[in-house]
C-alpha cells in the first residue's frame, strides 16, 4: 500500500468505509435484541456506538413480551 502524501484521502476513505461497515454490522445485535422483544431503534444506536458490548449483550439478554407493534 502506497499512501505517499495522500493522507487526507487515506484518512477519509478508511474512515468512511469503517463507519459504513459499522453501521451495517450494528444491525446484528439490534435485530437479535428486537427478536427478544427490545426496541430496535434504541438497540441500533447502542450497537453503533458500542458494537462489541451490544453484540455480547444481545446474546445474553432474556426475551421480553413484545412492545406494541413489535413482532417477536
Amino acid at each position, binding site marked *: *500500500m*502506497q*499512501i*505517499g*502524501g*495522500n493522507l*487526507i*484521502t*487515506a484518512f*477519509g*476513505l*478508511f474512515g*468512511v*468505509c469503517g463507519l*459504513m*461497515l459499522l*453501521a*451495517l454490522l450494528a*444491525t*446484528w445485535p439490534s*435485530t437479535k435484541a*428486537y*427478536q427478544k422483544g427490545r426496541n*430496535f431503534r434504541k438497540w441500533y444506536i447502542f450497537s453503533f456506538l458500542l458494537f462489541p458490548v451490544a453484540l455480547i449483550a444481545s446474546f445474553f439478554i432474556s426475551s421480553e413480551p413484545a412492545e406494541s407493534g413489535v*413482532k417477536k
Partner: protein
Amino acid sequence: MMVMSKKESYLRVDDGDSPMIAEKLFEASRQEAEALLHEMGVSRHGLSSLEAANRLESFGMNIISHEKPDSLLKRLLKAFVNPFTVVLFILALVSLFTDVIFSNEKNPRSVILICSMVLLSGMLRFVQESRSNKAAEKLKELVHTTAMVERGDEGTIEIPLGNIVPGDIVNISAGDLIPADIRLVESKDLFINQSTLTGESEPVEKFHAASSQHYSTLTDLPNIAFMGSYAVSGTAVAVVLSTGDMTCFGSMARAITGKHVVTSFDKGINEVSWVLVRFIIFMVPVVFFINGFTKGNWLEAFLFALSVAVGITPEMLPMIVTTNLAKGAVAMARKKTVVKHLDAMQNFGAMDILCTDKTGTITQNRVVLEYHWNVYMEDDKRVLRHAFLNSHFQTGLKNLMDVAILAHSEEEGFEALMQKFVKVDEIPFDFNRRRMSVVVRDNTTGKTQMITKGAVEEMLSVCSFAEYEGQHEPLSEELMIKIHDTVDKMNSQGMRVIAVAQKDDPPATGEFSVKDENGMVLMGYLAFLDPPKDTAASAIKSLNEDGIVVKVLTGDNEAIARCICRQVGMETDKILLGSDIDSMDEATLQQQAAEINIYAKLTPQQKARIVRALRSTDHTVGFMGDGINDAAAMREADVAISVDSAVDIAKESADIILLEKDLKVLGEGVIEGRKTFGNIIKYIKMTASSNFGNMFSVVTASAFLPFLPMLPIQILVLNFIYDISCTAIPWDHMDPEYIKKPRKWDASSIGRFMVWIGPTSSVFDVTTYIIMFFIICPAACGGPFGAPGVNQVLFISLFNAGWFVESLWSQTLVIHMIRTPKIPFLQSRAAAPLLFLTTVSITVGTLIPYTSFGKAIGMSGMPAMYFPWLIGMILCYMALATFLKIMYIRRYSELL
C-alpha cells in the same frame, strides 16, 4: 378511467366548450321521432349496409380519442426524450465543441459514440414498449362489446360498438351499454343508470315522446340516452345521434384526457420516483460544488453531477413496469384471463378477499328445470305453459332460468303457442320487486292475460288467489304456510324456486305498469337445479391456501346459498341476509363482513356496501360478477372481475375478464399477477437501494479523492449496460414461497429496504477506491498519486476503469442477491434470460477498458493483479449482502 370532476359543467346548456354537441341533443329531444329519422336519412328498419359503411368512413369509428393508441411519432418521442438521452445529448454537444469545433485534432469519436448510445437506448425502449402495447391491444381484442342494430337489408344484426354510426337504429335491453348518444324512438319501462356522467347512482326512467319542456342539464332530457350509461331494465329502440368524440361523454373525455384516477399502484411508483428525485435535488448541488471547489474544473464538475443525477434516475422504470405488466398480461391470457386494465394486475395479485356470485362460479351454470308444480305439488303443464309464454315474450335480459324454461318447453312442443298468442305489453324485471310480467292476447279467443313470474315471496305479495284444477280459491293462511314449507324444503336441497301467476283480462287502458301486478292468481312454481361444479370445492380450497378468502354474495335465498356452499366445503354456520345488512351501521357491517363468508338475498346496493365495508378494513377486495346486479359492487372493488359471457355493463366495469367462468382459472391468474408484481418490486427495490448506495460512494469520492472517480461518459455507459441487464427482469420467475401470499403495495417497505441494503455496495465502492488508489494504481504507475514521475493520466484512467468494473459487477450481482431471500445460484436461480444478460453485461463491462472504445471514453486496461482483488471484494460483498438480507428478513419478516 376518467376523472369526472368537470362533468357537471359539460352537461349544462350554458357551457361554452361543447355548445354544438349540446344544441344538437336539445334539438333532437324536441323533435318528433319520425321527423328526426327523416332528417337523419334513416327509416325504422335502419340504414343499409352500404350507407352504414359510407357513414363509418365519413364520421369515423365510434371510439373516444383517449382510447386510441399513441401515434408512431408520439411513441418515438416518448422513447427518445428522457433524462438519460437529454444528458447524453448535452454531453455530445460539449464533446462536439471541445473535440471537434475548437480542437486542432478534430476527433469526432466521442460525439459518434454518444450519439450511438442515444440511438441504441431510444430504440431499445421504443421496440420494447411497442411490443408491450401491441400485446395489450391484442388482449383487448379478445373481449368484444357489441350492440344490436337494424340494418335494412340484413335485419337485426350484432356489431362491435366501434362500428356504430350516426343514423343507426339500435335495440337496447337490460344490461346493455348505451353505445353512443341516442334519441329514443320506442321505449318500454326503460331505466338508465347515468352515474358515469352525473355521479347519481339511482337509475332514471327515459321515454320516447318528444319533449317541449325546457331543461337546463343535458342528462335531464327524458328521451336522450348517453354514451357511457347503461340500461338497468326495460327495452328501447333508438336512433344514434352522434358517435365517438362527438358524444357528450366523448367531449368530456377529450377535455380531461390524461387525467387518470391515481391507483395505489401509480401512487407507489410515484412515491419511489419522488424519493429518488429528492436524492437528486440534494445530490447534484453537493457533488457539483464539492468537485468544483476541490478539483477546479467547473464544467467537468457540472457534467459529472449531471451524470450522477442520470445514474440515480430510474429511467428504465416505466419501460420495466410496462414490459412486466404486458408480459404478465400475455401469460395470464394463456391461462384464459384477459387483463383489460394493466394497472389492475397488481391489485389482482394483492387481492386477499374474493367476493363472488354463486351462479356459474360455484355452480355449473347449467340450470335445469326439475319440477313444474301446481300449488299442491302435483306436476302441472299449465304452469309450464304460462312460464313459457312469459319467458318467450319478454324482451329483457333472458336469465338462465328463462333459457331452461324455453329448453324444457321445446321438449313439450309448446312452439304452437307462439302463433296462438301475441304480446300486448311487458313490465320488465327489476331487482327490488324481483318479478316480471308479460301481457298476451289469445288470437283465437281474444282473451288478454297478464302472466307474471318471479321470486316466491315477492310473487305471493301480489297474489290473492290460487288456482287448482281450473278453480280459483283464496290464498289462505294455511295454503301460504304449505307453500312456504314446500319452497323451503326445495331450497334446502339446493333448488331455486320461482312462482308463476296470472290474471285474466287485466284493465287495458293505457300502458301496463307495476301497479297492475296485483290480485293475481298463483298457478304454481318451477324448481330448478344448478348443481355445484366438480372443481369448485378444490378451487376454493386452493384459493384459501393462496391466502384468498372466498365470500359468496348472492341474490338467492338463504336455504339455497347454504346448501350449495355446504356442498363446496364452505363454513355455513353464519349467513348474513340483505335485510340484516340494512339494519347495520358501517362499523357493525365492517366487523360482520370480516367474519362472515356467505351473504344471501342481496340487492345490488347491498353487495356494493359489503365490498365497501371490506375495503375499509384494509383488505384488497376482488369482486367477480356477470350481471347488471353486480355492476355497482364491481365498481366498488379494488379489482373487478367478469367473464366474456357477461352483460355489457359487467364487462365494461371489469378490470379482468375470464374467458372461462371458473374459480380455478381465476386462481391461476392471481398467481401470474403476483409474479408480475414481484418482478416489478424486485426492479424497484434493487434500483432504489443501488442508487442510494451510489449516492454515498459519489459523495465520499467527491470529498476525498483528488480527481473524479469516473468520467461523466463512463457513468452513462455503466448505467446503460446495467439497464440492459435489467430488461430481462420481466422474464424472471419468483420463488414459490413468494407467490403463496397476497402481495400489497407498500411504499414504506421500499424506503427501509433502500436504507438497509443500499450502503452495502457503498462499503465495497469505497474499498475499491482504497485498493485502486493505494495499491493497484501506484503499482501500475510506479508510485502514489501526486508523486514525482507518476503518470497521473494513466493513474486516473486506471482508477476509473477499476471502479467502473467493480461497480458493474456489484450492481449486476445484486440483482441475483435481491431477487430471492434464499442463497442465490445455489438455492434459487434466476431465469435463463436474466442469467444470460447479467453474464453478458459483466463480461462486456469487464472487457471495455481493454478496447479502443474503453480508451475513447478515458479508461485503461487494469493489470492482472486487479482481478484477485476484484473477486475477493465481490465475494465479501455477496457475504455482507447475504448477512444484511438475513437481518432484514428477521426484522421485517419479508424481503421483497
